[in-house]
């Protein structure tokens, strides 16, 4: 399958390959909502061409236009000439960053926070209750921070509570196996800070299956956020850290329970292309598996049937179904665990989180998220499972009467 989020077109390739047919307008969630060509691929790519030709007057306006994209890849599936739009947009953001310089933005703060999260989180953990309380205050619309930095405040307010104990402080560094497969577990910021239960669920399944797991202590952030906001050098630095930490490990696979992380790690070869770590990056990328992909395809895991008190639906993360072509695996796990077929077609619409989009455009982002959770509830779902921590953050804050959980929490071994 052609990977619509990342084809072989170099990200700096001229967008003039756009034939302007306008098909992207049929599927772009932002165009559907806002009705402006500036938000859709055709408009962005043609504006980028104008910039390349020296015809753009306001770099700021251009930056805003480029920022207003979810990188969901829906347009690429519909594109008459198969343009890898998310790659082109990320490439354009990076090029603009290099050519026009740094510009303060809440998205950048988030990317740098994610970069530093491996150091920050353990240090902050004892303060988690205080931070969580502060966070809700900062977000309150009457607050000072809200008046100063409304986007940041709103974005912070939407984040789930910090886990009082980060995942790696509660998990072992090594889980002995029973001689079958050996894997390294990449945790990622989301599971580390907010959703350690998903990581624990994955470890429980591995233990149940006798799979040996190592959790390298100094792992960082996958770099997806930095690349999304145009900080390509930072993303490369993070990629190199990944290679240093994981490439030499004597493991069969590197598995992560976040679809966005696995998407990014599978691109390590592309990201590090032209650097000394390119080859090591590519061979590491080849070992990366998303959790459901690993459990179904490699480990042959079939969850035991259990009684779930409610109807379960699955939200397909863009980075999972478009980015990695993984559609059936999570459904197979759910079907086995619930005893019900999961005929639900893959979800074509992004949850609205879109990397840093949720921070830059909180209002639009929430609207998109609420539309997803409402749609699932109307179809009778009471539990919504997904497997990307970005989607989890987004869907949790827009879910009324709908429990949003990581898929792995529903399919663990029955004890």
């Amino acid at each position, binding site marked *: 399958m052609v990977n619509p989020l990342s084809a072989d077109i170099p990200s700096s390739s001229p967008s003039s390959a756009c034939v302007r047919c306008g098909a992207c307008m*049929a599927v772009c969630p932002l165009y559907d909502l806002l009705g402006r060509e500036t938000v859709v691929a055709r408009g962005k790519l043609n504006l980028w061409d104008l910039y390349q030709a020296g015809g753009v007057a306001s770099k700021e*306006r251009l930056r805003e236009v480029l920022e207003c994209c979810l990188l969901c890849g829906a347009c690429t599936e519909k594109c008459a000439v198969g343009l890898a739009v998310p790659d082109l947009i990320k490439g354009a953001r990076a090029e603009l960053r290099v050519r026009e310089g740094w510009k303060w933005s809440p998205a950048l703060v988030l990317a740098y926070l994610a970069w530093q999260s491996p150091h920050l989180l353990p240090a902050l953990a004892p303060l988690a209750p205080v931070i969580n309380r502060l966070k809700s205050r900062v977000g309150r619309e009457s607050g000072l921070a809200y008046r100063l930095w409304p986007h940041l405040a709103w974005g912070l307010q939407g984040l789930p509570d910090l886990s009082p104990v980060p995942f790696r402080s509660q998990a072992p560094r090594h889980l002995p196996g029973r001689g079958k497969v050996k894997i390294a577990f990449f945790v990622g910021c989301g599971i580390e800070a907010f959703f350690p239960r998903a990581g624990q669920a994955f470890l429980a399944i591995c233990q149940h299956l006798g799979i040996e797991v190592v959790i390298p202590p100094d792992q960082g952030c996958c770099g997806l956020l930095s690349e999304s906001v145009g900080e390509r050098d930072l993303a490369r630095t993070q990629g190199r850290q990944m290679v240093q930490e994981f490439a030499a490990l004597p493991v069969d696979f590197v598995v992560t329970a976040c679809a966005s992380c696995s998407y990014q790690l599978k691109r390590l070869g592309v990201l590090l292309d032209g650097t000394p770590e390119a080859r090591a990056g590519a061979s590491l990328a080849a070992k990366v598996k998303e959790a459901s992909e690993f459990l179904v395809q490699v480990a042959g895991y079939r969850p035991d049937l259990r009684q779930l008190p409610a109807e379960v639906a699955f939200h397909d993360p863009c980075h999972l179904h478009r980015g990695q072509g993984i559609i059936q695996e999570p459904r197979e796990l759910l079907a086995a665990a619930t005893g019900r077929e999961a005929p639900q077609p893959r979800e074509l619409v992004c949850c609205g989180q879109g990397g840093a989009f949720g921070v830059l455009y909180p209002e639009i982002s929430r609207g998109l998220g609420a539309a997803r959770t409402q749609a699932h509830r109307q179809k009778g779902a009471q539990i919504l499972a997904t497997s990307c921590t970005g989607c989890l953050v987004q869907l949790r804050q827009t879910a009324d009467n709908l429990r949003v959980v990581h898929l792995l929490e529903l399919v663990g071994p029955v004890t």
Partner: protein
Amino acid sequence: MDGAVVQDITGLVGAQRVLTSREERWCYAYDATDREHLPDLVVFPESAEEISRILKWANRYGFPVVPRGAGTGRSGGAVPVAGGVVLVLTRMNRILEINPEDLVAVVEPGVILGKLKAAVAAHGLYYPPDPGSADYCTIGGNVAECAGGAVAVQYGVTRDYVLGLTVVLPTGEIIDAGTRTMKGVVGYDLTRLFLGSEGTLGVITQIILRLVPQPEARQTLAAGFATLEAATLAVGEILRAGLTPTALEFMDGATLSCVRDLLPFALPAGVAALLLLAVEGHPRDVAQRAGGMVRLCREQGARAVIHARKREEAERLWQARRSVSPATARLKPQKISEDVAVPLSAIPKLVAGVQEISRRRLLPILCFGHAGDGNIHINVMYDRGVEGERQAAPRAVKDIFTLVRALKGTLSGEHGIGLTKAPYLRMELSEEAIALQKRLKQAFDPNNIMNPGKIFPPGLRSTYSIND
């Protein structure tokens, strides 16, 4: 454009419904062609009254106004070549009425065609015209360009479904044209005059559409032939046999070579042309007509006939047809796509003649499309970077138009003249006919503010500009 005018318009519709920055305006500078020109202002009107005010100002201050739907036109109709105001009608997108008793729908111009089709289907009704861009083009653009599509063989084109219109004239008056009845002969048929007028005679703000019952059954066939001639002859046979195909599409050998590996089925060796047929109607009637077509194709020497009775199989076949456009990019980076139409009996001669032009001009030229109504899409493929090819491409186009006229055909079946074909208008219309059309245009639009620079052969001005 005068800053005071921009202020007036902004005051009228509100700052939220105008785009003034160069960056945002650029996103409304083009359509689905390679032409572009920066407008001075982009406005999203929400009522005929707002449009009327803007058009009156246009006459007073002398700025051009270009109506735009989704900007998916194939001839440059929505490109604001003379600058001015682009009126984007996408916010006027209400379906005002779907009336199963009268078999009509009343809609605003910004409704997306696919959404309209789905909305009427929910009432068991059918709006047949189906241009390839149905999922994202607007009904207003369809009316202004008189869009067609694959099912024209049986159902006709947009003009056959428009009963009446509300139009803001270039001078600002708001008029109704036509009826909401099947018949109507009161006065001149202004409705038809607006159909395909490419936004040069006014701004359409409401459309009364004729609907038909949703057909109960649909089947799809594909038939592969060893020669192009056999395939085009079979087209004639099928049409003459009274089997009434709903759609009858074809792809020539060059097109097939592009999509061969994208097809959902293995094409037998020696197939040089493919026919795709759809049949809609009552289930028994559909079965009978489809059966007749299978027989006829076999009699005409088809190497392989695939009969898709199920929806999924059929969808796979149509996917092959839709994959033509993306696949052509594999041949050459640039293409000039024409949509000529010829009388049905002339299709074999047209296709053979185009092959000859392709050999003479040393360019790949693809023929595919709506064989059932004589509307053949011809893509002249070339590489802008190769001097010889860049010069040969427009010459090949002219050769094709000359051939089409010799065969008593027309330069454009459904895309319109717009900008791209305006230089060729005289190949089809006499000086007298053009003069009359210009007088008509002047009667509607004395100050030439409404989408100037379209249809009529230009004093050839450059249409590429990235400067104000």
